[in-house]
């Protein structure tokens, strides 16, 4: 049974169709990649599934339950978590408190339970300087906070929106190892990624979007050879 089932998902911004009748599934124990050129609608897909934006049509089914009309906070409580492309930490909190927020409200824990859980997560994601305010942290640490907060609600479906952006190659490897470790806990993971090396390394299957449509899907090695994918990324020849 797929964790996530998306049927004929449609999202319009005025006259612009950002996501055009998209259908796909995501299973646990897999890492699904969503790739495509800039403006293909990748982040919009996440926004619509996580409830940050309302749909224009179609349905989102999570664990056999219709969540299409539910607000974002309820979807998070049910088990859909996400990170943001540009990190959005809560500035007035320490790193640990940022992660606690996910446990407090996504998982509905009490303060002391949430603190314990957040400490465990810090250990799990190897975030040592968790008692510092946000403006003292590095990019990698901020990305880890995003990830930690998303993990604190014990998600079964996790969206990672360009979590590698801004990391150097060593940090990227750390993050890849971490995401693999998360996958072992029976979490369905969807990654949006621009770095193809990461996509090749991490994903078991990819969906290629172009202007809101799926133009190809399958294992990355296979998809990356397809002509329409190369055209979408590089433009038509001649």
């Amino acid at each position, binding site marked *: 049974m797929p964790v996530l089932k998306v049927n004929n998902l449609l999202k319009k911004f005025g006259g612009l169709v950002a996501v055009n009748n998209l259908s796909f599934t995501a299973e646990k124990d897999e890492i699904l990649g969503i790739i495509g050129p800039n403006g293909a609608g990748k982040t919009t897909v996440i926004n619509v599934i*996580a*409830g*940050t934006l309302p749909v224009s049509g179609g349905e989102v089914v999570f664990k056999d339950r219709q969540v299409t009309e539910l*607000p*974002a*906070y309820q979807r*998070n*409580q049910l088990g859909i*978590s*996400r990170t*943001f492309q540009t990190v*959005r*930490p*809560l*500035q*007035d*909190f320490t790193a640990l*408190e940022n992660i*606690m*927020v*996910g446990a*407090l*409200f*996504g*998982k*509905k824990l*009490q*303060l002391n339970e949430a603190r314990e859980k957040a400490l465990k997560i810090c250990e799990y994601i190897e975030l040592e300087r968790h008692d510092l305010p946000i403006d003292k942290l590095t990019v990698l640490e901020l990305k880890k906070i995003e990830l930690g*907060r998303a993990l604190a*609600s014990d998600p079964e479906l996790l969206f990672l929106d360009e979590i590698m952006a801004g990391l150097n190659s060593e940090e990227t490897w750390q993050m890849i190892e971490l995401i693999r470790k998360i996958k072992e806990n029976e979490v369905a993971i969807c990654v949006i990624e621009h770095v193809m090396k990461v996509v090749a390394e991490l994903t078991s299957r990819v969906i290629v979007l172009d202007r809101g449509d799926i133009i190809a899907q399958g294992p990355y090695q296979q998809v990356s050879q397809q002509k329409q994918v190369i055209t979408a990324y590089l433009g038509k020849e001649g």
Partner: protein
Amino acid sequence: MKKIIFYLFFVIMAATLPYYAGGYLLHVSTTILIFMSLSLSWDMMLRTGQLSFGNAGFFGLGAYASLISVSNLDIHPVLSLFFAAVFAAGVALVVGFAVLRLRKIYFAITTLALALVFEVIVMNLSDLTGGSSGRVLPQAIFGGNSVLIYWLILFITIIVILISELLNKSKTHYAINSIRNDEITARSSGINVFKYLVFVFVFTSAIQGIIGGVYTQQYAFVMPESTFSLDFLLLPIAMALVGGIYTTMGPILGAIFLGLISEYLKLIMPYGHLFIYGLIIVIVILFLPEGIYKVARKKYRNRKSQEVKLDASSEGK
């Protein structure tokens, strides 16, 4: 432990004030406490990131609710304060469902309009409210005994301070702080943003309602012009800004500081004191934008950490 003794000391000092202070100082203190509660209630709403100008409106509603319940329903004046709170909270709940969908400047300007709307309604229900000339009660609460009035207001203020402290230590603190920092992150982290905004809006309005009620009972008098006056809107805001927002101590210090200055200025220059008063507010906000409390706290912490460093370096030798 040290902290508790510290607080206890101040509570005892404040509670025994009538025994060593004269009538004038007692009156000034009563006014300061009223503004302190209003300032704290405004600050608690601001902690959600929503700048409300509705405080004078709910203050006024509470004032009228309290007066009408005493004179028309013959309720005991102290009991009428509960009535004021419930009434203000009820109205806040109803209008909150509409205005709390707005954000930032739109929310601020709508709450400002709310206060004006309340005033117009009150002016036009002249049978009940006395219209624009207002209404008078046969006598003030406790027969006008200023010591008892002071104790009642002190009691209410202490409760408001405790609420503010509890709020900053509760789960709700994490919710509203997240909402203020980044609403989209808050929503994606399982926070029911609307529920928390309504909750804080309702209980801060209830506090403003109680204070309005107590103020009315103190003077046995309501009038639209003075009850919905800008004083109850702008002074509490200025106090919180001067003292330091998002904290309990900030509005407390701000209310004491500005309250005392305003009284002193009134004494030394009966005319034009408001000009100097405004100037002081501007100067403090320009040079201490974080407020008195946060600047003092930072200085104290810096000095402490320097002492620790000095200790460490002297041990090194």
